[in-house]
């Protein structure tokens, strides 16, 4: 899941978590597409970051996943979920320090 979070955006220049959220909820592209009223291929384009959605579609996705828009789309790479949940990611230096102690 973390690797998907860090996936580089395609042509749109937007990072998104649609694939993660979809996998988490166990829904297919077709199901999400039907709920959004778009073609399932458009969901694929969104997930790869090859298409920048309209505000209407972005808000619809946010409503569907019950999350704020900025939790789904970002211009910056998303932090890995483990880092978000457990705080600052340990660096090599800090690990060496802890080992020395």
């Amino acid at each position, binding site marked *: 899941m973390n690797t998907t979070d860090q996936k580089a955006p395609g042509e749109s220049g937007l990072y998104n978590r649609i694939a993660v959220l979809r996998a988490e909820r166990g829904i*297919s*592209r077709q199901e999400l597409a039907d709920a959004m009223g*778009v*073609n399932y291929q*458009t969901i694929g*384009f969104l997930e790869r970051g090859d298409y920048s*959605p309209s505000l*209407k*579609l972005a808000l619809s996705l946010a409503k569907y996943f019950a999350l704020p828009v900025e939790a789904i789309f970002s211009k910056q790479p998303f932090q890995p979920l483990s880092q978000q949940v457990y705080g600052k990611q340990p660096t090599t230096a800090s690990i060496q320090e802890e080992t020395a102690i």
Partner: protein
Amino acid sequence: MISAVSTLFGHSLARRRTRRWLVGVFWGGLVPLLCVGFQLVFITSHNQNGIAVNFAVLSILWITIWLGGVHAGGWVKPFRAQTKVRNIVQPLFAKPKPTQSELIAQELAMDERESFQRDYIHFVAYSIARTMTLLLFTLYYLLGFWNQELLRQAGPLLFFLLTITLWSLPQTLILWTEPDMEEPQ
């Protein structure tokens, strides 16, 4: 923009490679063939231009059937939304539900990405056609210096080629550029 269930001699058009073959066959074989056919019809019946016009109309209709983009049919979705034909009997007897024609219309309807892509492709096609028009016009003008008889014969051919290009370029660009389609899962 392209129906994922379409096949060409058993090969799925969901694959870009198949679609590029199709475009290659169209521009490499069919378009020259149509142009030669039109020229033959025009030369042999220049006193009955109606035959040449009929040939041109049939060619354009055939291109539409082959590539799509105008009405339902062909491999590219229609560029304009389909008119929904309502079943007027059904609501009298049962709870309203989508009729077959409405389901087809939903299948053919373009979403926002496809509409955006359609508009972009049309812009690209317009840019190419603009350049091509200029080149054909220059060629036609230059032919006049060289041979007046050739100019008289080549004029309708160049015009027909331009018509085919204008009619089919957006569809061929879509077939060529759309990436491989994914599974809906």
